[in-house]
């Protein structure tokens, strides 16, 4: 069975500091992986996706993520966080059955 785990429920960083959100997955085949952001009262917005090829993928809003098959991880990073980045972030895995399996989410808070 496939699963996605986001070990950190809450993370607080200072504005301007770097950010890394963790995501671990379990899947029997090559995964398609995604990061979504959800601001209060908003739907999920796709930040970036990994299908194959270069294991470092760039997304919108200055985010990037690195796929590490050996660690079953797909961590999201940003070099300098802005106050507007405060939101909930979800890692997700896509399977051939056209299903998205989401992690539990990480709520990011940004200190001024």
């Amino acid at each position: 069975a496939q699963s996605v785990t986001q070990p950190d429920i809450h993370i607080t960083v200072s504005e301007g500091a770097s950010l890394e959100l963790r995501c671990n997955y379990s899947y029997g085949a090559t995964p398609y992986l995604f990061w979504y952001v959800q601001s209060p009262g908003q739907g999920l917005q796709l930040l970036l996706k990994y299908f194959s090829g270069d294991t470092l993928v760039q997304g919108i809003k200055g985010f990037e993520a690195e796929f590490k098959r050996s660690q079953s991880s797909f961590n999201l990073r940003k070099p300098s966080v802005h106050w507007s980045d405060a939101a909930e972030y979800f890692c997700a895995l896509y399977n051939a059955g056209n299903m998205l399996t989401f992690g539990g989410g990480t709520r990011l808070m940004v200190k001024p």
Partner: protein
Amino acid sequence: EAGVVQSPRYKIIEKKQPVAFWCNPISGHNTLYWYLQNLGQGPELLIRYENEEAVDDSQLPKDRFSAERLKGVDSTLKIQPAELGDSAVYLCASSSRAASGLYNEQFFGPGTRLTVL
């Protein structure tokens, strides 16, 4: 291009009452999804439609939940009767088939926040 539209955005009802949520997908998207998002958790798929056909409803609690997608466009999700534990956000998403046929990016609506008292 308009995104996925959902209404109402918020709904407060008393337990045992019925409630319905409406979703209008992005024009041309043949696949529509309903997700349940409990507080502090990620979304979980309830049902997926390909045009008018429900192709995956294994997670839909059929004793009280029902859904329809007449004419393969708009969709309605209904709960009757609602229970306290149904308080959550109900998300709708839609997608079109990519050229490769392997992946369809899902676009999400803002959701309906249901509170059952």
